[in-house]
């Protein structure tokens, strides 16, 4: 654990219907120190109250990227600077 991680801000980004349901495209905050994995973060979001509780009610429908790379539910947050939430992609 670096000092940067425990004191630094993380940028959270929201895309597609997650952006619409949270009403946010981006926020900067200091994550609670006990959030270690993507799963922890999704659980925390679902307990954050309106509008996050509804947006994150079905975490299995949500994909997460840490610093521009896809991250699985068990992945560790580590010293992530930017974490993004979005539905499964539909480009192409």
């Amino acid at each position, binding site marked *: 654990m670096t000092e940067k991680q425990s004191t630094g801000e993380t940028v959270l*980004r929201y*895309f*597609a*219907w997650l952006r619409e349901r949270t009403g946010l495209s981006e926020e900067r905050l200091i994550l609670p120190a006990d959030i270690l994995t993507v799963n922890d973060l999704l659980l925390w979001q679902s307990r954050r109250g309106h509008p996050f509780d509804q947006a994150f009610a079905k975490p299995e429908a949500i994909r997460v*990227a840490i610093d*521009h*790379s*896809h991250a699985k539910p068990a992945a560790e947050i580590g010293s992530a600077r930017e974490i*993004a939430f*979005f*539905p*499964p*992609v*539909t*480009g*192409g």
Partner: protein
Amino acid sequence: MAVRVSEADFDVSEEMARLTGDDTGIGGVSIFVGKVRGEAGAEKLVSMTLEHYPGMTEAELERIEAEAHRRFNLSASLIIHRVGEFKPGDNIVLVITCSPHRGDAFGATAFLMDYLKTCAPFWKKETLVSGTTRWVEARESDDEAAAAWVSIGK
């Protein structure tokens, strides 16, 4: 190797000429163009909006492209994906791969499209004639198409 995310349309002939240049080692060029369809299930489409994740999109397309070059014998490749608002018939995506032999070009273009559809952070929202808007849901068949490469390609 090149990737581009752009609101602007592309010209297939121009992009192909630029990509092949004067490389006479190229024997086959495989091109795929994805277009906006006018129907969404039983309903007619008015427009489609494509949102993406600037920064991650480019990184992901470059990763996918590099993987294609590891798996296939490619002389050159290009991925262009458009973002913004589109009408039925508009171009969405262009993939071009060049190789000495057609098999590598065919394989690489299919591989790139399958991975692009399941990994690149783009999202489509449809506006229907009825006035409804809705986010397109990911198709299981796309996940299966991408997953198939894991077993046969590595």
